[in-house]
């Protein structure tokens, strides 16, 4: 196994997530695309951790922290989307123009 094969899959996942964040209308799907980007980061961290044979396993432990933070982020994100839906009867990100100058 080479380190670059995992890094390339991570890059492809991150690019797909970026595409989803920009193109998706529904706020829940934007969050799902952010999850793809976080998974890409985790693949990179674990692959380079194994490649560097770090005695502290920093990459794996960092990816565990990222997983915990992603779970918190999704919980808060869904709560915010729920509140926006209650106030505006829509969860489409392009209908939220109240803050546009």
């Amino acid at each position: 196994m080479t380190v670059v094969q995992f890094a390339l899959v991570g890059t492809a996942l991150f690019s797909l997530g970026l595409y989803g964040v920009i193109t998706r209308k529904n706020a829940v799907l934007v969050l799902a695309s952010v999850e793809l980007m976080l998974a890409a980061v985790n693949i990179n961290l674990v692959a380079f951790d194994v490649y560097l044979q770090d005695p502290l396993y920093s990459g794996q432990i960092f990816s565990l922290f990222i997983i915990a933070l992603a779970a918190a982020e999704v919980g808060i994100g869904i709560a915010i989307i729920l509140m926006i839906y209650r106030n505006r009867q829509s969860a489409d990100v392009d209908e939220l123009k109240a803050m546009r100058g």
Partner: protein
Amino acid sequence: MTVSIADWFKETANWVFILLAIPTLLGAWRTVTSNNIVRSVLYLVVSLGGAAAMFLSLGAAFVGWTVVLVYIGAVIILFLIGIMITRAPLGMKAELSHASNVRMPAALLSLSMFVLVAWGLIDAFSNTAIEPFEPTPTSDIANLIFSRFVVPFEVVSIVLLAALIGGIALARRDDGGGA
């Protein structure tokens, strides 16, 4: 240590990697392009499952199973609840993505980012083999989290508590009066 392309295809672990990478990337592709919102979230399961299996193939069993438990077990359920509560447009022909005047620049942007980063990675790490490794013992990860990384661990627990309280405060229905 470097490996040639021919040697790369001789290694069984790399065929396993290809078998994992294809569903991971196809699932991600369908997640961002599917016209059915429930299917889109379920394709995310495929993609994250592929990522978890990749962690297992790298010997990082604890991270892999944490992804299965936290992402596939909890986060996907949160997404499905979010879809149902916000009455997202269900059905096969729902307009979930922006029109092509947004999609084209977005595709160009993400494709150029992929090409740029992939070029840099191949330039820096081309054919750099991962030395033979032992699977990471989970007890080592546990010992490190509670010794070297105990302060970040406690900070993460406070963040989770704050997120819990914040989630309740945000989603609570205010019956007029009082904030």
